[in-house]
């Protein structure tokens, strides 16, 4: 047992004495959170709004004037045909469009209820959502203006549809995404490199010929990274809550346990990689190319999985971070309990078992 503790202490020395490791470990989450936080800022100004007024009555004119007078939009009233609007989106000449159907004013005044259509570019979900919120706010205000009193005789229903990303992923979703990404990089890359470094140094030979059990070597190498990853996880949570004002809706304990499971999955993958390579560069390349890129692509926080071709959707199922992303989203953002995520948890558990078994089985008590 003493050997084990000394081994773990040694690993901590390695980490704390290598500035680069520390930088990757703690600089990365901070940088990611800050970058994503700024990149996805909800401050929106001067958005070009294409307006197609097929009704052309008093109400539409009043509403358009109201929109114009807000600082958010530049209204483009060119008479685009309704059927051409999708082409305009594809070409990028339109980012959002407001369509008044014929007889808008008539419906509103006589039927007491009118519809307008708002089209937004869902591939930029953040802007899209903001546009929807603002237009909804403006129409609601206009509604109240033309019908004073508690009862609303006239109601305008804004039917909005986000093209390309109907679910409206974005804004907050990047936090679970960054968590998955950072844990993946830290655990997988650093663990594999730390094992392979011993092979390069020749110290692995000494470790193997010592009476210390070879399997314990692996576990002792993984434990410091487990602890550091948990610290990292807490750091991201703290940043999310205090810097970005994202509340944790669900149980923190559940989130913590699920994250621990995901960290162990990543550690197992790291150990698996370290068993198959003999140079630090290969290990790093493998964990970067083999883990980080699929994580970014197939997790679902950068590119919505629903819109991917079927084969990609199938591939995404074997990416552990995809499941972890779902879990964090459910627990942290939606506040759901374990009963909603047991399936995802089971999948992660299965993956961990497989990876860990392969890693431990392939670890040789000899050199070849």
């Amino acid at each position: 047992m003493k050997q084990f503790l000394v081994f773990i202490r040694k690993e901590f020395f390695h980490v704390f004495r290598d500035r680069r490791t520390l930088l990757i470990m703690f600089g990365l989450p901070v940088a990611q959170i800050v970058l994503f936080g700024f990149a996805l800022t909800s401050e929106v100004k001067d958005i070009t709004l294409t307006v197609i007024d097929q009704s052309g009555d008093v109400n539409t004119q009043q509403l358009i004037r109201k929109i114009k007078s807000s600082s958010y939009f530049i209204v483009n009233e060119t008479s685009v045909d309704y059927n051409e609007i999708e082409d305009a989106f594809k070409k990028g000449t339109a980012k959002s469009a407001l369509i008044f159907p014929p007889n808008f004013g008539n419906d509103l005044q006589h039927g007491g209820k009118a519809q307008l259509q708002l089209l937004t570019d869902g591939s930029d979900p953040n802007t899209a959502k903001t546009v929807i919120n603002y237009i909804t706010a403006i129409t609601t205000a206009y509604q109240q203006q033309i019908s004073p009193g508690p009862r609303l005789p006239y109601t305008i229903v804004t039917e909005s549809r986000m093209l390309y990303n109907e679910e409206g992923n974005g804004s907050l979703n990047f936090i679970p995404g960054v968590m998955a990404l950072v844990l993946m990089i830290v655990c997988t890359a650093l663990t594999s490199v730390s094992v392979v470094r011993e092979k390069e140094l020749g110290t692995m030979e000494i470790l193997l010929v010592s009476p210390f059990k070879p399997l314990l070597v692996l576990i002792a190498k993984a434990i410091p990274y487990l602890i550091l990853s948990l610290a990292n996880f807490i750091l991201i949570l703290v940043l999310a809550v205090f810097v970005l004002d994202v509340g944790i809706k669900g149980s923190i304990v559940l989130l913590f346990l699920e994250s621990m499971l995901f960290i162990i999955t990543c550690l197992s993958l790291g150990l698996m990689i370290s068993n198959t390579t003999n140079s630090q560069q290969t290990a790093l390349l493998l964990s970067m190319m083999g883990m980080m890129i699929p994580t970014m692509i197939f997790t679902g926080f950068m590119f919505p999985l629903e819109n991917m071709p079927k084969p990609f959707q199938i591939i995404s199922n074997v990416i552990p971070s995809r499941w972890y992303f779902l879990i964090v989203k459910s627990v942290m953002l939606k506040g759901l309990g374990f009963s909603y995520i047991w399936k995802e948890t089971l999948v992660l558990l299965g993956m961990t078992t497989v990876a860990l078994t392969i890693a431990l089985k392939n670890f040789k008590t000899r050199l070849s």
Partner: protein
Amino acid sequence: MSAVTLDHITKTYDKGKVLAVDDVSLQVAEGELFGLIGPDGAGKTSIFRILTTLLLADKGSAAVQGYDCVKDYREIRSRIGYMPGRFSLYQDLTVKENLDFFATLFGSTIESNYDLIKDIYDQIKPFNDRRAGKLSGGMKQKLALCCALIHKPEVLFLDEPTTGVDVVSRKEFWDMLKKLKTQGITIVVSTPYMDEAMLCERIALIQNGKIMSVDTPEKIIAAYPVKLYAIKADNIYRLLTDLRSMPEVDTSFAFGEYIHLTLKNERADTTALQQAIEQRGHTHVTIKVIQPGIEDSFIRFMNQDSK
């Protein structure tokens, strides 16, 4: 009982394509300072790795202190000390931390075997808090030896400990080994430097995975079958090429300022040879009969094998 036994050991790599160790058998007695002498790629490291239970042999059996290298590998691992060829310790840990780590790893402490490493450790103790990566080559090597000794091993395996080390540090290192031997530790050491062979009690000359000879250095030298001459003249390179063209010359190799020469037909009289050389225009020719060294023996064995 022998401390180390190799019995018809064969080891290949790349699915049998590369033959690293070819039917090697040898024994090392308890308390002996045994040397494996051969160039890079001769199979020394493979033999060390088989004995330290890091590799499995294709054929044959090996044992250390009576324990089988395959079955009883755990037993062996707690009884041996090993310094691999490219061993370079943890560069980011200090001298003391390295030593502490390896002591604990082998279930020991620095204090419990302090007398064993004292002589060596005293030399690096002033640098206790310096990171191993900042030590000089000679110091690193001393620290590595301390780390290999810290658990008082019964058998010590040192794979090319003096490669790339200068003459002064090499001399110091061998003095340390001699002192260790007096403590009763069996030492198996490998080296590509032929001159170090004389410092071992018994040696095995190894080339291309095969043992060419195993004996004490003195006996190997005494077994040199023919008379060996040392010749020098003013232009040594021309002398070498001229000698190679002379029919009576069997082998000729440069050895420092001299050329070591054997003749096909041994004669006690060297005057005829001297005349023949001088006839080719060489000046200041001296010829003398000399005692061969290990390197002469090694070359002779190599030539026999390739014939």
